[in-house]
């Protein structure tokens, strides 16, 4: 079935109940990955799919030996991974090329570190450069190249060490759609013809179409903490056209899987009676322009308040990972609901679509205070204080009991932006101060 005939039983890599936590200075633990297991065999491409914050990039770094797990073990060829292992190479999202080295210099880097004789090093590098379509660019510097060409260098640099495992961390996400498509097809073609000196590939992505097109197997990660929510085998023949009905059906299925999870998590949270515990809900910053835009698109024909997620993503020219945060923000504010790969506007959402600016702001403020406990909390604190002032650090400290510093900062930034739009409080960034008055 799989295009690559050399699949063998012997596992290249085994990830055994791996967990990863970070400790904050005060000793609290933040769990990023929990109980993740996976096996990678020779000749397969496995995709790790998930929202940002699902720990899939962290997992990739554990496998690369760039970080160590706090629980469980990563075994490469039967031996535990301690530090970057020979035979595992990585392609980076931002290319990670050394700007002061030429294309050839960048490609040679790993071989140089391997103490390879100069002549052999050059021969192998030129082969890799040839293979990946960089002929004639050997003496160019990365800054002279376009994004697509740069990532080709990233690929050549990884291929040249003939790795057993190629790790790819969202390798196409920094490229424009057309370039990404070209690179993807080129890579798949070489892979399917068995021309790549690679054992197998582990691909981290948030692009559902890309995952379905490239992978033999998909692992879908849930967020907070990250763990494997489900596994989907992809038994479709290569090449897989984006418009092929079988491919479309699978993409739809993945959408359903990916939207099913957060809804259950929210249901759990709602069941919890203690209000204070819910302040810890991390918020992702989504501009209110995007929120209004999606609501308006959904309320207009042909959707009339309800749409299939893949369909509306395509109609709005958004990637899944751009669309999800917006959809989820709407869900958090109870302006819409996600269900089985569909998004549906609530009563409030429909009312929002019909309203004018001021009315919208009132409605938004109402939803924000009712359904985002942190917003209600900030407002409450400001109301209570006689000065109606509160420093940002006060809330930051509170949030950091539940989440990482970075995520607390992000959550507050999201809240500030929404709160300003809703005019439920004011914020002065110079003084890092929340207040109730808007500047005169």
């Amino acid at each position, binding site marked *: 079935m799989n295009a690559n005939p050399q699949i063998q039983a012997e596992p290249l890599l085994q990830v055994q109940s791996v967990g990863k936590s970070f400790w904050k200075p005060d000793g609290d633990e933040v769990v990023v990955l929990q109980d993740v297991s996976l096996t990678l065999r020779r000749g397969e491409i496995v995709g790790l799919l998930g929202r940002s914050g699902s720990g899939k990039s962290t997992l990739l770094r554990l496998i690369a030996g760039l970080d160590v797990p706090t629980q469980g073990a990563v075994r490469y060829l039967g031996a535990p991974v301690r530090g970057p292992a020979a035979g595992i190479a990585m392609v980076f999202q931002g290319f990670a090329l050394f700007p002061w080295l030429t294309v050839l210099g960048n490609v040679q880097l790993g071989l*140089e570190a391997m*103490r390879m004789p100069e002549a052999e090093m050059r021969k192998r590098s030129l082969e890799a450069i040839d293979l990946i379509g960089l002929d004639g660019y050997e003496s160019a510097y990365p800054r002279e190249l376009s994004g697509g060409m740069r990532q080709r260098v990233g690929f050549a*640099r990884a291929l040249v060490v003939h790795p057993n495992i190629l790790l790819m961390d969202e390798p196409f996400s920094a490229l424009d759609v057309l370039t990404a498509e070209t690179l993807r097809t080129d890579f798949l073609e070489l892979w399917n013809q068995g021309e790549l000196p690679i054992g197998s590939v582990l691909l981290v992505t948030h692009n559902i179409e890309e995952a379905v097109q490239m992978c033999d197997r998909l692992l879908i990660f849930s967020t907070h903490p990250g763990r494997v929510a489900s596994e989907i085998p992809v038994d479709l023949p290569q090449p897989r056209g984006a418009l092929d009905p079988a491919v479309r059906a699978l993409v739809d299925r993945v959408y359903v899987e990916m939207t099913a999870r957060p809804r259950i998590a929210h249901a759990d949270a709602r069941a919890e009676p203690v209000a204070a515990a819910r302040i810890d809900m991390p918020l992702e910053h989504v501009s209110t322009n995007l929120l209004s835009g999606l609501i308006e698109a959904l309320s207009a024909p042909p959707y009339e308040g309800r749409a299939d997620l893949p369909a509306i993503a395509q109609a709005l020219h958004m990637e899944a990972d751009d669309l999800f945060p917006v959809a989820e923000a709407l869900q958090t504010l109870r302006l819409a609901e996600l269900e089985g790969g569909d998004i549906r506007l609530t009563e409030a959402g429909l009312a929002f679509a019909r309203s004018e600016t001021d009315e919208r702001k009132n409605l938004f403020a109402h939803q924000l205070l009712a359904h985002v406990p942190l917003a209600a909390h900030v407002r409450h604190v400001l109301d209570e204080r006689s000065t109606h002032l509160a420093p940002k650090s006060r809330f930051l400290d509170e949030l950091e009991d539940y989440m990482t510093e970075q995520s607390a900062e992000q959550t507050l930034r999201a809240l500030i932006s929404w709160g300003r739009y809703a005019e439920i409080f004011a914020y002065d960034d110079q003084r890092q101060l929340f207040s109730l008055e808007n500047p005169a």
Partner: protein
Amino acid sequence: MSTERLPISVLRQRFFPGRWDLVAFVLVLGALAFLAHAALSLTHPLSRLTPESISLSPWALPDYAAQTALRMLVAMLASLVFTFTYATLAAKSRRAAAVLIPLLDILQSVPILGFSFTIVFFLSLTPGHAAGAEMAAVFLVFTSQAWNMAFSFYHSLCSIPAELDEAARAFHLGPWMRFWRLEVPFAMPALIWNMMMSMSGGWFFVVAAEAISVGNTTVTLPGIGSYIARAIAARDLGAIGWAVVAMTLVILIYDQVIFRPLIASADWFRLEQEARLSPTRPWALTLMRRSRLLSFGGNAFSGLMRLGFNRRFVPQRPRHAGPRGGRFGDVLWFAGVAALAGFVIWRTGRYILAHVTPLQVLHVVGLGGLTLVRVLVLIALASVIWVPIGVYIGLRPRLAAALQPVAQFLAAFPANLLFPVVVSVIVSYKLDPNIWLSPLMILGTQWYILFNVIAGASSLSSELREVGSNFRVRGWLWWRRIALPAIFPFYVTGAITAAGGSWNASIVAEVANWGHHHLVAEGLGAYIAQATAAGSFARTVLGIAVMSAIVVTLNRVLWRPLYARAERKYRIS
């Protein structure tokens, strides 16, 4: 391996000397001959280094100038070695950083001539020979250059992008290879800029360090500085004019041969295409690239370095992110450091108080206040003058392109060469030294304000300027809303550099001689200068301690908050 598979771009051509090689050959040969000559002079007996041995003939100047330039070069190399070791150590070890970085901060604030008492130590290393005196002079220049370079390198090491760091680790770069392939290139642009700043300051101090007396020890090294000192003693304005000409040429040559190529190559090390510092390719860089002789040397060097890449060092383990281990070790380490620091402070304090009364300490603090007032008033005056001029120049690209190098040159030019001219005027018109000596402190450092403001004004986007004219924002409103905010971060950088330089200059500027006339302005700089000349170690240390304390406090209370504010509020991201 067969060469026909090699693409043209990597085929190394056979060695065949070309036009550029001829130039390179002459330059290399000249440099070697000169180095040999200079090395020989190190063995001369110390007794020959008297002020009388300095000739005031203009024909002696090329030789003196070359020796001064060589001292600068050696000091710069020493600063680089220091930078690479000290900053690397601080960046790699958390415990070392906790000690090294604050120490660097203090060292940076110590007035450079405060180190002049080390001369006695260096002389004792090579009794009777000039080598010790040379080392002392180089060390003094080194102390004016090394600290900010080390700081810049340390910051670069701490801010290496995560992905590049991961790539280096994932592809198994050893520490040595990582250093040369990742860390040094990444730090290069900032380091080169700081080297230039260091050089600018360095000329000032090499001039001051060549002719110096500590107590009974007087050192006069052949160089432009000694030439000037001799000219002052002889009240020879003509000789001073010649020295100024010689110095100008030396700085121009340094700029052309070392810094233009360095800046041009710094662009290369930038992560992304940013505004280029140098629009045209300097001839010296062309020489290096074109001359096969030089590139042969370069290849040999990089081959040598690559030998080191192959060394297997201890493999790099990922750092464990678990709850911090080694808390106990930390406590032990910091307790040890605190104990040592306490001991040093106690001993120094006891030593000073044994020689100086508390009332005198109070007096010195008062002198510090006087110098502080001078520095602040002068910075304010310079700002009032140069900010409008800098904005005017910066908004006119052609003018800016023409004048920016001039401003940078003026900042590098050692103002102490011009002191005698001013002092002779003060003497002949019998002006009050307390007031009229003060401008000398800022004579050399005001240019930092000017060229930073020019840079700031030229970076103001044409769109923002068009908005200004579109809404007819004019006059004072234009300054308040557009020009001043745009240049503010740049201005603060310039003012910090100028203020730091002025403190250092105060030691040279508050005391001045012209023949047998002796002018003194009351202040901390004069106090330190006199204490050093009198060989009073306790008073020198006291003066330096007070000055460091004032500078550090000023940095914390005034400059750092201002800079943070500038960064936060006015940076257009």
